């Protein structure tokens, strides 16, 4: 069973990064459905830094944490995306796709692509939640 996943997936599954919740999160997102058996929750803390263009400030993801109910792929994609977006601007984070997360993990078994590869959706949901609450 462990053999069906890449080394990167197994690493993130066994040693997930940024597990937990952010109590005073700027935004919270959730994706998944119990029928498929994966549920992901993302907490983001948004901060400001001088924009790279030199003018004004831009919003960045200062911190991110996740909680996931699901299979190896669900946990690994959640963990992976948290590493990918820390320090990124919201605009950059919004562009990250589920496929990019899967690629960063060295690929996922085909049956997992559809159901368990939802981390980017959960992150986007958190960003949207933050923007709405502003």
């Amino acid at each position: 069973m462990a053999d069906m996943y890449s080394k990167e997936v197994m690493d993130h599954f066994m040693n997930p990064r940024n597990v937990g919740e952010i109590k005073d999160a700027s935004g919270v997102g959730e994706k998944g459905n119990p029928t498929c058996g994966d549920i992901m929750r993302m907490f983001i803390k948004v901060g400001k830094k001088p924009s790279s263009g030199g003018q004004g400030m831009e919003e960045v993801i200062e911190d991110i944490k996740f909680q996931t109910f699901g299979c190896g792929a669900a946990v690994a994609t959640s963990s992976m995306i948290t590493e990918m977006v820390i320090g990124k601007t919201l605009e950059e984070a919004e562009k990250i796709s589920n496929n990019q997360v899967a690629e960063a993990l060295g690929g996922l078994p085909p049956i997992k692509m559809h159901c368990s590869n939802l981390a980017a959706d959960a992150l986007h949901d958190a960003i949207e939640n933050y923007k709405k609450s502003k």
Partner: protein
Amino acid sequence: MDSIYLDNAATTPVSDSVLSAMQPYFSEKFGNPSSIYKIGQKAKSTLENSREEAAKLLGASPKEIIFTSGATESNNLALKGVAFHWSQNLGIKPHIIISSIEHHSILDTAEYLEKSFGFELTKLPVSEEGIVNPRELEKVIKENTVIVSIMYGNNEVGSIQPIQELSQIIKKANEKRENKIVFHTDAVQAYQYLDCDVQDLGVDMLSLTAHKFYGPKGVGLLYVKSGTKFLPQQQGGAQERRQRAGTENVPYIVGMVEAMKNAKKTGKEIADLRDYLIERVTKEIPDVILTGPQIGENRLPHIASFIFQKIEGESILINLDLLGIAASSGSACTSGSLASSHVLTAMGYDDLLAHGSIRFSLGKMNSRDDIDEMMKHLPQIVEKLRGMSPIK
């Protein structure tokens, strides 16, 4: 660490005596039972001796045994064979009754007949312990009911079905009928531990597969009570009294019958081990549900399955796998799919709970040491995964 195999309901290793019984029939006594010369006729007599022994072990007569490639084929042959006999030879639109917790080889076959041929299908509900209520069968039998197929013991939760009571109901319904309803049971998981005498059970058809009781994979049988009408589903040679075309798999048939002879039929030791496992898991891990019958006698001796609330089954299995411990979530086939188990759903568990199910199934190689070793790890695995879960 040595590996610990706790998935004996998926398959079992071929035992030494089975392997040595099979050995001569590969290269030395390799004849085709349909050939008329000596080595062919020797193979024929080996085949017929095996049939006689299998029949004796089931309380049947030899001509009632059809050797197959396993229970999937036996189950397909039973449902399709009987239903097509009715639709093609009698011109009646068949109504099929199964339980809602059958193995996929019954469930999918029945649904295929419903969807592709327009046959009628009724799935009997089960209790929250996974047991069919005979009263429910009584209610759904119709004029065009042709076959009732209810498994003897469930492969996911281990619930034992009241086959004799169900048989009584069908016998009563048949008293007034010209075309008799056929009663089939999938006895795959039960054979090793429970009485499978077809007279005692009162069944017309019964399926077995050898690899669940230390025989080889890819061989099984279908018992068909004489006089039971069905259409063969494989065309070709005249083997198996024209009921199942194809050169007989002599070495594997010999292996299966040896395995049948070795089946102990007593589950006391295994049941004690199972109860030890159940006690430790339910006492040492919070928020665990033992699925299936709570009373030992209503449960197959080798199966214990649990729902670990708030976490998902696969993630538990991977952690166990990395430690060399093999178990499964539901049935071996469903662990490859994303849908939650139809068995747990039929028992009333919601999807979220059903996704947290793990089945441990024991065999003769297991001892308390295996369970002790497993329990050194399982509580921590569950705790770690719960720490990650959004469900509180």
